[in-house]
C-alpha cells in the first residue's frame, strides 16, 4: 500500500472536500450556485474551480508536474485575486489541500505507516504554494500596471495635445 494509490482511490472524495472547502469562503447561497450549475458559460467561476482543482490534483499525482500546472492554477487565482482583498484568503485553497488529504487519509497513513510518503506529498503542495504566490503577484501587478498605464497615457496625451511635449526628432 502506498500513498499515491490511496490518493488515486479516494480522488473523488478528496476533490469534493477540496471544492467544498474552497467554496466555504462564500455565502451559502453563492456556494450552492457555484457548485450546482454545470454550464461553463453561465457559471464560469464554479466551473473553473471544479475543473481546475481536478487538473491540479492530477498533476500532483504525476511523478513530475507538466508545464500545464501554472495554467490550471492561474485559472483559479485570476478569479480569487479579484474577489478577496487578502492574499492569504485568495490562496487559501492551496493551503487547505494538506488538511483535506490528512483528514481523508489519516487512518490509512497511520495504519500503513505512510508518513514519509505524506511528507513528500506535503512538499509538493508547498511547491504548489510557491507557484501560487508567483501567479497571485502577476495578477495583482497586471491590475496595478493597467491603472498606472491608464493614468500615464491620459496625462501624456493631454500634455501632447496642449503642445507641452516635443519628442526628439532624428537629425
Amino acid at each position, binding site marked *: 500500500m502506498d500513498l499515491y494509490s490511496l490518493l488515486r482511490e479516494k480522488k473523488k472524495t478528496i476533490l469534493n472536500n477540496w471544492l467544498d472547502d474552497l467554496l466555504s469562503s462564500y455565502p451559502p447561497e453563492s456556494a450552492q*450556485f457555484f457548485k450546482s450549475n454545470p454550464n461553463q458559460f453561465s457559471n464560469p467561476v464554479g466551473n473553473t474551480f471544479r475543473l481546475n482543482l481536478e487538473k491540479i490534483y492530477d498533476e500532483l499525482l504525476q511523478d513530475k508536474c507538466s508545464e500545464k500546472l501554472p495554467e490550471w492554477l492561474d485559472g483559479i487565482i485570476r478569479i480569487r485575486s479579484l474577489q478577496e482583498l487578502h492574499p492569504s484568503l485568495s490562496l487559501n485553497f492551496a493551503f487547505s489541500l494538506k488538511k483535506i488529504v490528512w483528514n481523508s487519509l489519516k487512518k490509512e497513513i497511520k495504519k500503513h505507516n505512510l508518513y514519509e510518503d505524506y511528507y513528500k506529498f506535503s512538499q509538493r503542495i508547498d511547491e504548489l504554494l510557491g507557484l501560487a504566490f508567483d501567479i497571485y503577484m502577476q495578477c495583482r501587478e497586471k*491590475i496595478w500596471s493597467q491603472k498606472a498605464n491608464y493614468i500615464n497615457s491620459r496625462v501624456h496625451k493631454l500634455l501632447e495635445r496642449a503642445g507641452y511635449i516635443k519628442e526628439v526628432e532624428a537629425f
Partner: protein
Amino acid sequence: MALPSARELFSKISHRMPKREWMDIPVEIKPGRYCYPANPKSLEYVGMPYARQWSPLDEDWKLPENWMEIIRTGMRDRLDRFRTFKIFMDICVRCGACADKCHFFIGTGDPKNMPVLRAELLRSIYRGEFTTAGKILGRFAGARKLTEEVIKEWWYYFYQCTECRRCSLFCPYGIDQAELTIIGRELTNLLGLNTDWIATPVANCYRTGNHLGIQPHAFKEMIEFFCDDIEEVTGIRPEPQFNKKGADILFITPSGDVFADPGTYTCMGYLMLFHYLKEEYGLDVTWSTYASEGGNFGFFTSHEMMKRLNAKMYMEAKRLGVKWILGGECGHMWRVIHQYMDTMNGPADFLEEPVNPITGTKFENAKSTKMVHITEFTADLIKHGKLKLDKSRNDNIILTYHDSCNPSRGMGLLEEPRYIIKHVCNHFYEMPENTIREQTFCCGSGAGLNAGEIEELRFLGGLPRANAVKHVHDKFGVNMLACICAIDRAVFPPLMDYWVPGVDVTGIHELVGNALILPGEKERETNLRGEPLPGKEG
C-alpha cells in the same frame, strides 16, 4: 430567439432565493467595489442638492437632517409617477429565476448582487413604509425599517448594477431591475449621494456639450487629426463639415469615439464612409461641435437629468435645420433614444421621417424619433450594393462579436451589425448561444461604472463575457472582439488583457473603413492602426 414562456422559465429555475435572512447581514463597504463620491462642484453646477465632501468609508455620511422625509416623499412621488415602479414593487413572487443571471453575482458571489435581492433592498422599504401588511407585520411581510444603513446599502448596490437588463429577460413577470436601479439612484441623488464618474461628466456635458469637457475647437481639431491619419493611409483626405446649416443629416456619436482609442479608429471609419458617400452620391452630413456627445450620463442620474442632456440633440437638429439625425456606435445613447427620447423631448415634428437618400429605404422604426442607427444605415447601403468593399484587407482579423447590452437587449439591434461584419470580414465566429444576442453578458462597466477605482469589481462583472471570448479564442483563434458601444471599446482592452491576452477590440465601422475602397485612393499598405495589411508584412 423566441422568448420563452413563463411556464418554461419556471420549469428551468435551478437557483433559489437565499434562505438566510439577508436583512441580518450588514452591508460591508469594500474598497475596489465603489466609485468615488461626486465632486461637489459638479453637483452644484447642475443644481443637484446637498453637494458636499463625504467618504463611503466614514461612519457619518453627512446626510441632510430630514433625510427620512426626503426619501419618503421621493418614493411616494415616484410610486405615483411611474407605474412600472409601483408594479415592480408589488408583483415579484421571489421565484429566483433572475437570481443567478446577473454578471456581478456570477463573478463576485455576493448574494446582494442577485437581481432579486437588489430589488428587495428597495422593496423592503416600500413594504415597511407604504403597505399596511408591511407596517403591521414587519419582517414577516418582508418589510424593514428605513435607517441610515439602508441608505448606505442602496448606494453601494445600486452602483454595482450596470442597468444591463439581462435579469429581466429571465423574469416570468418581466420585472426590469434596470428600472429599479434607476429609481434607486434617483433616490440616493436626493440626498446628494452620487459618484464622481457620473456627476462630473454630467456637468461637463451640460456646460460644454460632452462628458470630457472638450471645447468645440478641440473637438474639431481631433477630427482633423483623424483626417490627416486617413490621408496618410489612403492618400485621400475627407473634408468633414461642422455645424453646417441646411445639411441633410446631423451625425452624433459618443465623444469616446473622438477621444479614446480604439474608438478613434471607428471614428475614422465614419469619416471615410461619409466621404465616400459624398463623393459617390452627394450625401450631405454635418457634425456638430455643440451636440458633441451621444452618450448621456444623465440617464444614470435621474429621468430629469437624462431629459436635459438629451434635449441638445433635438435642439441642435432644429438649429441646423437638418432632415434627420444619424447616430454612431454607442450603447446607452441608443437606450435613451429608443426608450425615452420620443416621449421626453419629442415628438420631433420639425424633422422628416428618415429616408436613406441613396437607397430610398424608409427607416420605419425611426419614424417617430427621427434618429437612425449607423449600423442600420450602413447595412442598408451594403444590401443595395452601394459600397465598394475589399474584405480581404481584414483577413488578419479573426473576429467575434459582442452584443452590447443596450442596442441588443434594449432595442433589438441584432442582425444589422452581423450583416455588416459578414460583408467586411472573412473570419467571423460567434460566441456560445447563452452569451450573445438577447442573452448577451454585459461588459461589466456600463451605467457609469467604468471608473478606474472599481477595476476589481468591473473585471469580475466582465468575467462571464471574457470567459465566452476565451472559448472562441482557444477554439478558433479569435484575435479581435467587435462591439458597437463606446464604453465597450474603452473597457474591453484592459478586460481582455487580464482574462484573454491576445484579443484586441474594434468597432464595426473601423472594419468598414478598412474594407471600403475610396474613389481615387492609393494602394494601401496598412490598416487604420498603421499595422501592415495582409500580404504587406514584408
